[in-house]
């Protein structure tokens, strides 16, 4: 018998489909925004955190902490200057240093960044919690013009080992100057990591030097380029690199080595602790995200207010309906439940619609975010945080929905069965 009230609530809602659908739509949007902001906050942070692990210092030309982190690890932005090979070697020879990996940036291939490095990169680079880079097919580069590509490069461009690729000069998506004379060959494809590694083309330092033979004054000199048939003519020892990853024998030595590099008299250098730089990055982002969260909460409240207004407006018209229900035996609390049930149904459908829209949006936006920001945001079921937010939104809607329900209850008590026309 009590169940019939819910039947009534549903039928009543169906009768006012149009307004209700608009209300649901607005609340669903706001829920999507709220969950989206929360999801972005968590996932972005985790994605950043999972990009690099086990490296004690990142060394580059003197610039800002976060900037160095971004261009060397995330391939976002550009360096301002270089690190001379001499300095790099000096650092590598320091007592406390266990290993170093040189990084050379500045070229691209069809929008993907090219990284010049050596085989140590594949040995020492770690991501997530101490995970090593693995090969899905092929192997690490050995020849000068060998290339190892990340999983996304292979997938998006349909490359397989043996593929010939031409590198372009510069890091833009479009380049008007390509190193067409010296093509590279894909010898290895890495397994997916969920980090910017997936979107990188790795080549040897010698390879980078080779394609820049004849580029001494900033652009290619016609007639002068690397001739693979006469390798003895060229000295492919790099003179400078963009940045370096450094691993120490003891983490307690971190500050001393950092100070040594920062104070290095021969060249203006910067050494950052990845953890600290990441923390600074997040702290900056956190402020923006808190603002976003606050706004989304307000938007949800706006949506709920709209729903309540719609119900309150209908209240007057429905007084006759309530009087009729009273006359056939409905108790006042039946009337109360009728209205509360309506708020509940609206919030429930809106919440569901919000989640579904969020997934849809994420599926669409994911490749964009990945290519622009190097952020890998997996589509996953709602996290605990998100569920809590969702429940809070629904509770808020139900709570506010109590207002018209209570008013309806009072009206039905006062009106009794008299239909005030």
């Amino acid at each position, binding site marked *: 018998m009590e169940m019939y009230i819910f039947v009534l609530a549903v039928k009543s809602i169906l009768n006012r489909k149009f307004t209700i659908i608009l209300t649901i739509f607005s609340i669903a949007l706001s829920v999507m925004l709220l969950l989206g902001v929360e999801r972005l906050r968590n996932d972005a942070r*985790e994605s950043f955190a999972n990009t690099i692990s086990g490296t004690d210092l990142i060394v580059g030309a003197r610039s800002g902490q976060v900037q160095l982190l971004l261009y060397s690890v995330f391939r976002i932005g550009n360096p301002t200057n270089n690190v001379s090979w001499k300095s790099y070697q000096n650092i590598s020879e320091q007592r406390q240093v266990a290993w170093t990996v040189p990084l050379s940036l500045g070229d691209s291939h069809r929008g993907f960044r090219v990284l010049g490095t050596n085989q140590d990169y594949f040995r020492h680079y770690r991501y997530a*919690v101490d995970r090593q880079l693995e090969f899905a097919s092929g192997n690490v580069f050995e020849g000068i013009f060998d290339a190892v590509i990340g999983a996304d490069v292979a997938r998006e461009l349909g490359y397989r080992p043996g593929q010939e690729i031409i590198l372009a000069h510069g890091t833009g998506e479009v380049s008007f100057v390509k190193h067409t004379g010296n093509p590279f060959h894909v010898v290895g494809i890495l397994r997916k990591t969920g980090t910017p590694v997936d979107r990188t083309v790795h080549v040897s330092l010698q390879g980078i030097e080779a394609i820049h033979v004849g580029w001494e004054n900033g652009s290619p000199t016609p007639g002068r380029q690397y001739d693979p048939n006469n390798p003895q003519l060229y000295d492919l020892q790099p003179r400078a690199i963009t940045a370096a990853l450094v691993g120490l024998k003891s983490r307690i030595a971190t500050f*001393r080595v950092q100070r040594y590099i920062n104070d290095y008299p021969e060249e203006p250098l910067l050494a950052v602790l990845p*953890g600290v730089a*990441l923390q600074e990055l997040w702290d900056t982002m956190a402020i923006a995200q808190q603002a976003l969260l606050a706004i989304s909460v307000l938007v949800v409240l706006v949506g709920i207010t709209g729903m309540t207004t719609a119900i309150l407006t209908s209240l007057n018209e429905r007084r006759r309906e309530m009087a009729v229900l009273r006359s056939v035996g409905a108790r006042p609390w039946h009337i109360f439940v009728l209205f509360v049930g309506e708020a509940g149904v609206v919030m429930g459908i809106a919440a569901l619609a919000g989640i579904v829209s969020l997934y849809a949006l994420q599926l669409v936006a994911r490749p964009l975010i990945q290519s622009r920001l190097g952020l890998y945001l997996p589509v996953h079921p709602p996290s605990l945080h998100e569920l809590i937010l969702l429940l809070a939104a629904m509770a808020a809607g139900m709570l506010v929905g109590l207002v018209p329900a209570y008013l309806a209850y009072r009206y039905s008590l006062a009106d009794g069965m008299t239909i005030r026309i």
Partner: protein
Amino acid sequence: MIKKALYVVSTMLLAVLLVQGNGARAGLAIMELEWSDLIPQGYNPDELVEQYRKKYNIDELPEDDPHVIELLQKLDELEKAAPLNTSLDDKIVKLPGFVVPLETNGENATEFLLVPYFGACIHVPPPPVNQIVYVTTQDKKGASIRGMFDTVWVTGTMKAVKLSTDVAEAGYTILASRVEPYNPE
């Protein structure tokens, strides 16, 4: 009579339990440290600085003055000897400090350095080796870090190990069982 006997017996039992409890607690006593505790007796770089101050009035000299450079070098060597307070080895300690995150996901850090000050000026060398603690958390999830310049209490087992100077820097490490926020009063 019986009542009195019961009373005596129960009091004695209580006393035994209390003592045992105390004894147990004493075994698990947590030493609350200050940063000065990490510097062993006899290690006194201030003396050296005082010497130089008296002799050369280094406070007035510019940074690139040879005497200043000499002093800094001497301090450096002193520090390289890495004197540790080895009496702290294997003790359960509690120490407050600033967090320098090493492995973190922004909310929790599984490895970090604990230092007595943060963001000092370039003119002063970084904290000496006996004023840095390398902390790893027992909890695999890590310790909650509230952002840059977060201050925490670290409780855990400390190791003060001096390795052969050739291989690596020696130093203090703590395997932290608890990391709590430190709020200045």
